[in-house]
């Protein structure tokens, strides 16, 4: 299958008054057409920064993309002119933001906001754009009559649907969903996930789903990448990650999810905190929290090693066990 997105050794840092924040440190990812990739990690792991880099929406300065490349349909995104990038954003690549409450402009009607993206990228009349906007609203399950209403008249779940409608209005090749369900309650989460799954089936959109919810990943993703302190720790198909977990951090994530069948008094968290991004450990980034940490882990930085097929892991302990 054709590769739609290829990220190689991406490095992003931010210069702040407290020092240099190393947000993304050598992320390598690829996505084939029609695939859904789950990017899983804790808060501050660099998920959103990676996503914004694909859209080239990182504020420079203070941000700086100091290494790596992002190829979208074989073209280097980091070398494109601002004008080319504007044409791609919203048309070929679009993004769903985390918080539906603040992602819509409060003084413009939802219809206008959907029509805006259509008019930006397609040569259609205002009336035609508005008609298409109404179609999009219907598609995400909102009656077209409500296109003249303002964002504050919608509930959170409906706002997220409007945002999805905006993101999909131009039939993008790649959709980046940044924690699309985090700000919603559980029943609405399920509806939104169903909607996204249907859209994926209908249009074959490639998707990057950023989340910290492993349940959501299992539902919809084909591939999973576990990101920690700006680094991919484990990468593979859904099956490989869930049934042949190799990295202790991934294992820790699974252990911290409560099981329906088991009756436990306490959840099992991963001890410790994510390392300070201004002062990362020199060896394995996860070493200070890892139960299977050895001297080698503290001093040497493990490389990404392919176990079999696509399944890659960045851990000495996992390799030793396999070997």
């Amino acid at each position, binding site marked *: 299958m054709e590769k739609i997105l290829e990220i190689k050794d991406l490095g992003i840092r931010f210069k702040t008054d407290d020092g240099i924040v190393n947000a993304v440190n050598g992320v390598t990812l690829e996505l084939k057409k029609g695939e859904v990739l789950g990017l899983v990690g804790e808060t501050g792991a660099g998920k959103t920064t990676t996503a914004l880099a694909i859209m080239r929406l990182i504020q420079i300065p203070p941000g700086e993309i100091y290494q790596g490349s992002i190829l979208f349909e074989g073209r280097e995104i980091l070398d494109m002119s601002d004008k080319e990038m*504007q044409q791609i954003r919203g048309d070929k690549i679009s993004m769903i933001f985390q918080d539906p409450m603040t992602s819509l402009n409060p003084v413009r009607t939802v219809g206008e906001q959907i029509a805006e993206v259509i008019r930006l990228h397609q040569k259609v009349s205002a009336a035609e754009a508005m008609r298409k906007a109404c179609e999009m609203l219907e598609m995400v399950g909102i009656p077209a009559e409500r296109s003249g209403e303002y964002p504050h008249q919608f509930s959170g779940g409906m706002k997220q649907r409007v945002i999805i409608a905006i993101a999909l209005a131009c039939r993008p090749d790649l959709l980046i969903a940044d924690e699309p369900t985090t700000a919603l309650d559980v029943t609405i989460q399920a509806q939104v996930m169903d909607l996204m799954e249907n859209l994926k089936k209908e249009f074959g959109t490639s998707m990057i789903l950023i989340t910290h919810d492993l349940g959501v990943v299992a539902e919809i993703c084909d591939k999973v990448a576990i990101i920690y302190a700006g680094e991919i720790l484990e990468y593979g198909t859904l099956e490989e990650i869930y049934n042949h977990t190799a990295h202790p951090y991934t294992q820790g994530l699974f252990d911290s999810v409560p099981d329906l069948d088991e009756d436990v008094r306490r959840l099992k968290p991963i001890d410790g905190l994510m390392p300070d991004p201004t002062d990362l450990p020199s060896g394995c980034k996860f070493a200070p929290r890892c139960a299977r940490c050895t001297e080698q882990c503290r001093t040497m930085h493990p490389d990404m090693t392919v176990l079999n097929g696509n399944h890659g892991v960045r851990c000495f302990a996992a390799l030793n066990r396999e070997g």
Partner: protein
Amino acid sequence: MKGNHKRSRLLGIWKRFSRSKTAMLGLAVLCIFILLAVFAPLIAPYGYDEQNLREAYQGISMRHLLGTDNLGRDTLSRLIWGSRISLVVGLLAVAIGAAVGGLIGSFAAFYGGRIDSVLMRVVDIMMAIPSMVLAIAICAALGPGLVNTMIAVGFSSVPTYARVVRSAVLTIRQQEYIEAAGAIGSGNWRTIAKHIIPNSLAPIIVQASLGVGNAIQSAASMSFLGLGIQPPTPEWGAMLSTGRQFIRDYPMMVVAPGICIMLVISSLNLLGDGLRDALDPRMKR
């Protein structure tokens, strides 16, 4: 359909606006003044420069409803003629100030960094000069006259608008929907015009509706110094300052233009308040 959409939005704003009685009152008073200004030649009983020294310093009478001034000119007629000058000076000076200041402020806030620093330091320098002195300097450089007065008064209020707009835009640009606008491929200009300015209108409207009064007063001070509108052209502020010398014996010469200025300013404030609420769809009840 888009046309309908736009019309329905304007209709919505009007509906919300007309629901507020105070705002409608403000609009009505302002409309009366605008009509007076437009039809001044038909309404005014005398010409603005018709002197009659024998009838100088008169009080309220049937012949002169609001009395006459030191040169025997009919005060009411001069007020009506003066509304032409004062309204135009007030509104246009504010428009100049708000447009230039708003542009500087929104640019500075949107781009940040060095552009922000340079623009705001320029504004700081302007702010360090008292606005009256700045206006006098501009007027002295350009020469007296109606247009130059408006430019002078307008420019002297630029720093205030730049500051107000910058702070409003700074808060708005942090919002996620501005980032989202970038993510759908909207360019910087478009984002400023379509997303940032409509959301930061409220403080600008309040500042502008208060600013009209200030502008009329500044224009009056300029006339008083001989730099602004030249006599015999009637202008409310100028009438006020001429009448000042006679306030003890003939208070009408001061009270009448004073009340006019007050009415215009308060009607604009009411209008501004109503407009601000009407433009915010969240205020719908």
